[in-house]
């Protein structure tokens, strides 16, 4: 085990997969020479050459179309979309092509492509560069959506995503690139579609997604001082969702709080709440609480952006609500 940042973990995952499988290649806006807007792909072009790591024009439509085509020919493209906001531009290629080929042909045709993108607010990038696009794609069958939270998971899940035969949207939280954590030194992957209990607890279940896992964990630490024992579950793969661990946890704690960064209304938390209402309603001792952003674009002003983003206080308040305090 060694300490690595999220940025290093992603870089290593890409390097290892480029090394392991010659079908893997990486492209996008500024990923080559510049090493990526956030320096995530730093050094990869030097190491693997311009044939396998290269820059493209500013055209997400082209990125999506070429990736689908390349994947259909048997390669494994990894595309970087600089900001999750621009997933709206590549959405047609993902939704109507990448996600549909398997079902359209019914002969095992797969589209093994990975679309890496950054998401989230907190860096004062304003309303066009700060969104969380999970909700735009959660209703599209045929793609997997991965939102890791730790350096360990970022690396293992990205490697698994590249090896997966389905199209994967791999979400990287802008504010977490510098986060450090233990990462195994040797080869490993983290399986897709498996949630993980990040913290064991008895009083309330907190399901947190992506960058909000850290927020939930910090809230749980503070709640512990108040004698509240919170369980934190990180789905890791958002779609398709590994539901049973959530049901099991709710059956134990009888309370559920869901935390994500996107707007609460229409967000993924609503899906989890609905699933639990269907499967475990009679185990609930309190209304389900959702913690997310208000239904408004991400504000630019620093103080407004801070108010917009869910934080530990919001999670703690929601937990206290479920406890009837």
């Amino acid at each position, binding site marked *: 085990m060694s300490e690595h940042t999220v940025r290093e973990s992603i870089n290593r995952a890409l390097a290892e997969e480029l090394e392991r499988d010659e079908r893997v290649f990486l492209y996008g*806006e*500024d990923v080559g020479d510049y090493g990526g*807007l*956030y*320096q995530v792909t730093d050094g990869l072009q030097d190491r693997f050459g311009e044939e396998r790591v290269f820059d493209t024009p*500013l055209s997400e439509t082209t990125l999506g179309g070429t990736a689908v085509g390349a994947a259909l020919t048997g390669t494994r493209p990894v595309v970087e979309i*600089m*900001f999750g906001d*621009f997933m709206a531009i590549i959405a047609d290629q993902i939704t109507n092509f990448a996600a549909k080929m398997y079902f359209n042909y019914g002969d095992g045709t797969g589209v093994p492509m990975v679309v890496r993108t950054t998401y989230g607010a*907190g*860096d*004062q*990038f*304003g309303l*066009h*560069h700060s969104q969380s696009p999970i909700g735009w794609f959660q209703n599209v069958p045929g793609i997997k959506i991965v939102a890791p939270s730790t350096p360990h998971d970022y690396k293992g899940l990205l490697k698994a995503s590249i090896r997966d035969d389905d199209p994967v949207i791999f979400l990287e939280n802008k*504010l977490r*690139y*510098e986060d450090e954590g233990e990462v195994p030194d040797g080869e490993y992957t983290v399986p897709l579609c498996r949630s993980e209990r990040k913290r064991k607890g008895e009083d309330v279940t907190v399901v947190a997604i992506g960058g909000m896992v850290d927020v939930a964990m910090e809230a749980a630490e503070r709640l512990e001082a108040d004698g509240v024992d919170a369980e934190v579950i990180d789905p890791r793969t958002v779609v398709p969702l590994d539901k049973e661990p959530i049901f099991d946890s709710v*059956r134990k704690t*009888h309370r559920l709080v869901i935390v994500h960064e996107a707007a609460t209304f229409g967000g993924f938390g609503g899906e989890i709440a609905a699933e639990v209402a269907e499967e*475990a*309603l*009679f*185990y*609930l*001792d*309190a209304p389900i609480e959702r913690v997310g952003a208000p239904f408004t674009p991400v504000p*630019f002003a620093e103080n407004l952006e801070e108010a917009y983003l869910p934080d530990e206080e919001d999670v703690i308040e929601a937990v206290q609500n479920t406890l*009837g305090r």
Partner: protein
Amino acid sequence: MQTLTLPKGGKTMEEGTVVEWLLEEGEPVSAGEPVLYFESDKATSEITADEDGVLLERSVAEGETVPVGTELGRIGSDDEAIEGADTAGTEPTDGEPDPAGKPEGEPDPGSKPKPNSDPAGAAPRATPSARRIARERGVSLSAVAAETGVRQITRDDVEAYTPVGADTNGDDVTTAAEPDELTVEPVSNPEYGDVLGSPWARVLAANHGIPLSAVADETGTDRVRASDVAAYVENEPREPGPEPTGPGPDAAVGTEPVTGSIDEPAIAREGPPTGARGVMFDRMSTVANEYASTTTVARVDVTDLVSLYDQLSAAWGEDVPLSLTAFVVRAVARSLPEHDVLNAEVTSEENVRVYEDINVGIAADTDEGLLVPTIYDADDRTVRALSREIDRLASGARDGTLDHDDMQNGTFTVSNAGNLGAYINTPQINPPQTAVLGMCAIVDEPGVVDGEVVPRKMMHLTLTYDHRVVEGATAVGFLRTVKSLLESPESLLS
């Protein structure tokens, strides 16, 4: 005067590099024009002038990397050149230059602004709605800019310039009146009055047989949660009710008042198993929980046996109620001494009791359930005597005329489900015995005799034994002995 400082372009930005100065010192600049480009770890961004004036000083050279907040230079009027030099660094920056930069990599202005361009001549910036209103009203944006002194024109600026009274169509949604705050009244529930319970609280209350209203009265709440039910139960030990069983809701949902419409199957009868069925319940529970029951099967050619049975039946007539079971009991009684651990009882974990006497129990189906009367000293009885005893015990079992002794002291059991038609049947051990033999149906099947396929009568014998105390080899050896005796049936008559 404007002090140019390196802005913080994002939370992770700590330093930046001056890429290019667009002006020489002393060169004039208009408000809104870019003065220099800098590069952070994210992208290249520009810093623009806030006011008209000249570039008084470049404090940082091109290519130099400095921390966020460093003064890069100053803009002011010509006469501020000296005064400004004295106060450099003490004057607060008014107005942050474009802090977010253009991280997406939007092309920076392709043509660099002309330093000498006339500010009044440049097209002012305006928001889309300001442009629309200006267009609708035939107002020149340049005129608005000139009038208001604003370079980034908003809708308000245009409206301020043309304060036409007609603009009251109120399409400004942000000023819509707030609706009165809703007052939430508790919903009255016919089952509980004004008391509401969480789903889990209802489940717990139902499992304890407690009305929610009682919990509400006791705990003084009309919003009952699981903790209230728990507190109520703790305070009312006189009426504990049944413990909640199992995980709760899934099992209890049928008895929940709120979901009482679920159709449960109609009950024909219920109650504890009694009499022989009670005995069966207890004994089979013992076997299931404690025994290592294992079954081995032999296929026996009973062609000759059936033939002999037919001959003797004709010869002995109705005087003797001859049965095939008698032949099997005879064979069993002969074979048991050699495999005596099958003629035994497990009396405790530490004790296996092997019997010398051979008392064979015969399973008999009756209206009251299965009875197993005993043939004492089966090894001392002939086929004829066994047949008579089996007949007596079977009819006694049916009529309920057996006495106490007839029903105990068995050391081994034979069960004939063959006459009920069972092709293969594995009866369960009658504890504390260690084995039971099952007889199955006799069926006509092709067999091989002296290399020829001929019609034969075949029967399965199944031996179920307690593998804790009986080895498999013993069980198979016993079955082989019984099989060879039954396949040479005359030997059973001696």
